């Protein structure tokens, strides 16, 4: 079943390559432009469940890699659609029209990586409180400097009291 | 000081207020209050005296006004409640239009109720009864819109009632030649029992409709919730009690209770009717979300208690029933006045799901609503408790535990629904839009405080009203009840309200001291509240919707107003029937001529070939 699926995808989408790293795992690498159509196609093929969206920060190549994890309801096959977007002002199309539950995943990635999802109505902060720094999951974010800046800056109450 | 002057001041005063209204609104308001207070003084100086005057001849039929202990009691109740609601409506109706008409009709209703209570013969009884029904109709449909439909429903049912009464009066006149109540009551005992049954059924239908007993109650909820609040206080406080006055008239004076007791079926039917009224309407009240509808359904419920009290021919039952009539008048009109105060301040909002937290802004109205609710439930130290205690005692000692069970379950229905009433309006979070609500002006607080004091006073010292009621019972032929200032002393279980009041007071003082022993408390506002660690911003913590959700799911299908649905089915059937006849009776001449010709042809055909006769 996986072989003929592979042939079908490569027949339709020229610039994608499909491989099977292990049993029941299929990786589809494609361009950013054709992500929406591929996701739509896979959804029609029966991969109706968007399990998660994860993101990898390749800082050396200056690119983010977005991975959409899809799974069918009736077979163990797990599909990963991988696309690459450049790091500077990273932004891509939202997939809310295909999978409604992507809203919160995109909101999380926007908050922690800073990737702009055009078309997502609600990209408000989800986990971080009162955050004005670089998105924390980026490789160029220095946590030690941030801790020194925010937490060690706050004086402890006791010595404040003794000195005055 | 005779009755004729009393009636003249009552009716004349109402007409004069209408004229003063033309002059200026201030004079009219002052004059209306003055008239109602004067009437209270006139009536109170009739205490104990009995007097009969023949004031007019209607085609050789003497119209008589008489006053005895029973009618005095009703008269004083009528006057006090109307005076308080007139004072209440001074500022409640301030910015509404057509106020001359309002005060005029209010005083006409008051005068006609006075007439009913004082009338000595059936004809004047009937005349004042009609005046009362019609003026009440005018006031129910005072504020336009849905009130018109409610008024229509009310007037149609009261017309049916007065027609039955008219038939009864005519049959009495034909068989006895006189309409004087005292003469009739002496002659009627000789009549055959089924004639008495017919007469009492006719009259009981008329009074049952006015009294909103179960099958005839459908007019009451829309009428009470659409009428302006001061008038709905009079309506459910006193106007319904005219029906109970009629009951007392029929059961004790005309038919004489021992006669009635022999007709076992009628007595049994009346008791179970009262019990059904009680249970069903109290639990329907539980499901209402509109404050005034909830109170209206309770008015129907409490009538069940009165019926249960009256139809048992013991002196306890009579005392309980009559005392409950006046208790219900006090706390029901108090509750309606508090709802009026809420409406006045929140600009007409009385939906229980959108109010809340008003205790901080309107403490006196809350005090009135609390005392009224305790009276309606029958918490000790309120007068409702004493009358309910009397009724229960008669039910149990006469050996009717299931009727007593229905009454007690009715009490629990009132507790749940009245706590919902108090909780959804006064307790809980104060919504943002009622932040600037202030307490009602003094002219509205005065009646609320007076009525609450009456409820508590008669609750602690029930002897005062019970002595008067006992004297009525004795005059109606009952063995006297050993009533003392603090309650009833009897071998099978006494009631001593002073002891209860003293112990509760001491216990309260002791607990206040124990409360004082603890550490000092700090006062916090309503948003400093436990919300599992999170902070809930303003207006996000209101939660008074559907207060008894689990209970509704269980009892909603069983406690609907079946009778109302049944009546609307009849109305619909009537309308479809009339539509069908419109096709035939369609109004242009051609059709009518053809019908007449056809009819003649048929007649001739029968005549020639029929050979039938």
């Amino acid at each position: 079943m996986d072989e003929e699926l592979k042939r079908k995808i490569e027949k339709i989408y020229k610039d994608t390559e499909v491989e099977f790293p292990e049993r029941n795992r299929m990786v589809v690498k494609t361009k950013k432009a054709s992500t929406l159509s591929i996701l739509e196609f896979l959804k029609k093929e029966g991969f109706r469940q968007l399990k998660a969206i994860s993101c990898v920060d390749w800082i050396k190549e200056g690119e983010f890699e977005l991975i959409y994890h899809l799974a069918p309801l009736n077979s163990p096959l797990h599909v990963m659609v991988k696309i690459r977007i450049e790091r500077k002002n990273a932004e891509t199309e939202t997939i809310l029209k295909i999978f409604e539950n992507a809203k919160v995943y995109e909101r999380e990635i926007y908050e922690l990586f800073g990737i702009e999802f055009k078309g997502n109505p609600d990209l408000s902060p989800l986990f971080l409180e009162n955050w004005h720094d670089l998105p924390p999951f980026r490789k160029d974010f220095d946590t030690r400097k941030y801790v020194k800046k925010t937490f060690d800056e706050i004086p402890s109450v006791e010595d404040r009291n003794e000195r005055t | 000081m005779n009755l004729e002057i009393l009636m003249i001041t009552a009716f004349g005063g109402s007409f004069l207020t209408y004229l003063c209204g033309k002059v200026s609104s201030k004079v009219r308001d002052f004059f209306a209050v003055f008239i109602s207070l004067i009437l209270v003084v006139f009536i109170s100086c009739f205490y104990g005296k009995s007097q009969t005057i023949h004031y007019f001849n209607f085609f050789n039929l003497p119209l008589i006004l008489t006053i005895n202990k029973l009618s005095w009691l009703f008269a004083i109740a009528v006057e006090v409640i109307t005076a308080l609601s007139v004072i209440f409506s001074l500022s409640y109706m301030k910015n509404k239009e057509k106020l001359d008409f309002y005060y005029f009709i209010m005083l006409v209703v008051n005068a006609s109720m006075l007439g009913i209570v004082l009338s000595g013969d059936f004809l004047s009884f009937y005349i004042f009864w009609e005046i009362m029904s019609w003026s009440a109709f005018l006031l129910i449909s005072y504020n336009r819109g849905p009130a018109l439909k409610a008024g229509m429903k009310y007037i149609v049912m009261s017309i049916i009632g007065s027609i039955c009464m008219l038939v009864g009066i005519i049959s009495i006149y034909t068989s006895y030649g006189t309409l004087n109540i005292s003469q009739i009551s002496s002659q009627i005992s000789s009549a055959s029992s089924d004639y008495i049954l017919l007469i009492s059924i006719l009259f009981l239908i008329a009074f049952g409709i006015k009294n909103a007993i179960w099958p005839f109650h459908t007019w009451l909820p829309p009428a009470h919730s659409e009428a302006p609040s001061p008038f709905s206080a009079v309506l459910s406080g006193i106007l319904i009690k005219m029906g109970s006055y009629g009951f007392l008239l029929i059961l004790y004076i005309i038919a004489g209770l021992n006669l009635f007791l022999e007709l076992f079926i009628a007595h049994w039917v009346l008791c179970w009717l009262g019990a059904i009224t009680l249970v069903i309407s109290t639990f329907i009240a539980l499901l209402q979300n509109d404050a005034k509808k909830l109170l209206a359904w309770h008015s129907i419920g409490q009538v069940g208690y009165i019926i249960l009290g009256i139809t048992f021919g013991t002196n306890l039952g009579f005392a309980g029933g009559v005392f409950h009539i006046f208790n219900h008048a006090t706390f029901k009109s108090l509750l309606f006045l508090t709802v009026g105060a809420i409406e006045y301040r929140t600009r007409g909002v009385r939906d229980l799901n959108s109010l809340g937290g008003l205790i901080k802004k309107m403490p006196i109205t809350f005090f009135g609503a609390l005392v009224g609710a305790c009276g309606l439930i029958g918490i000790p130290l309120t007068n409702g408790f004493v009358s309910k205690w009397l009724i229960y005692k008669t039910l149990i000692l006469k050996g009717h535990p299931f009727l007593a069970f229905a009454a007690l379950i009715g009490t629990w229905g009132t507790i749940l629904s009245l706590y919902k009433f108090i909780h959804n309006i006064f307790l809980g979070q104060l919504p943002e839009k009622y932040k600037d609500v202030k307490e009602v002006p003094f002219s509205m607080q005065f009646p609320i405080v007076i009525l609450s004091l009456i409820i508590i006073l008669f609750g602690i010292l029930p002897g005062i009203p019970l002595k008067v009621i006992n004297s009525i019972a004795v005059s109606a032929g009952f063995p006297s009840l050993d009533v003392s200032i603090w309650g009833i002393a009897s071998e099978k279980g006494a009631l001593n309200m002073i002891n209860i009041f003293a112990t509760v007071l001491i216990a309260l003082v002791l607990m206040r001291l124990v409360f004082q022993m603890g550490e000092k408390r700090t006062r916090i506002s309503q948003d400093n509240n436990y919300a599992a660690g999170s902070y809930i911003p303003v207006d996000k913590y209101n939660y008074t919707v559907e207060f008894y959700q689990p209970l509704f799911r269980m009892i909603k299908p069983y406690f609907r107003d079946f009778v109302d649905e049944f009546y609307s089915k009849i109305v619909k059937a009537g309308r479809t029937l009339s539509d069908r006849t419109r096709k035939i009776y369609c109004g242009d001449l051609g059709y009518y001529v053809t019908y007449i010709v056809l009819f003649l042809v048929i007649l001739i055909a029968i005549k020639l070939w029929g050979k039938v006769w």
Partner: protein
Amino acid sequence: MVIKIIEFIFSPFLAFIIGVFFLGLFRKIVARIHQRYGPPIIQPLLDVIKLFHQKGFSHGALFDLGLILSLAGSIVVVLFIPFGGICPLKSSGGLLVILYTMLFLPLGIALSGGEGANPNISIGISRKLILCLGYEVPFLLILLSTMSFYRTISIVDIVNSQKNFHWTLFSPLFLSGIAYFMILPAMLGMRPFDIVSAPQEISSGPAVEYGGKYLGLFHIQHSFSIFIMIALFVDLFLGGGENIFYFFLKMLTIFFIMVLIHSVFPRLRLEQALRYLWKWPTIFAFLGVIISKVVR
């Protein structure tokens, strides 16, 4: 006259002690059932002492008054109930007055809780009133069956007519006795029916906003209500005891059984509780009333 005054002071104090002792016993028995050592018997007393030394928060005048009213109401009800021979307010009210003064308890808590302006409290109160309606249906039938069986409404007469061992439980009214026994957990608020103060669901219902001395008063009121419910049962069905010790023994056995039931059953939902309460207990109580009319 002096005996009367002593009775007046003595019986609420005794009721408080018995109630607190029962609460301590309750926690000890439940602990032992969980195979753990459990707190000392006087732990509730220590808790109340601690709570009176904590600065509570108050939401307004009614927040304090409602609680005080409910506590005062429970003391007044205790004075009405004959307790092993002493009944201070014998002459001024019978079973009906007890029934109606018992309304002070839920109403006082409801009023003061309502002022606390917290949704958990309101849900707790609406559950309490619905549960009260639930168990009142059989409870009223039971009271009516005893009243119409003994042809009186004063509880002292009922107790006196159960002298030397022909208790109502063994008389033809044993059905209402069983019905009362079946609804007792609901009246005490014990486990199968502790829907009202469910700590997990609505974080202890009406007591959410009570801190410091409010919680102390709430515990005292809870101990009084336990005493009242069980004393009423012993008076109506177990002959009320010649002196205080017998009365206490009977109450102890009833309470012990209730605690065993408490620690075994899971908590019911409100609909299940209502369906249970309006089924078998009501049928038994209904039969009890019929028997009381027929046998009389």
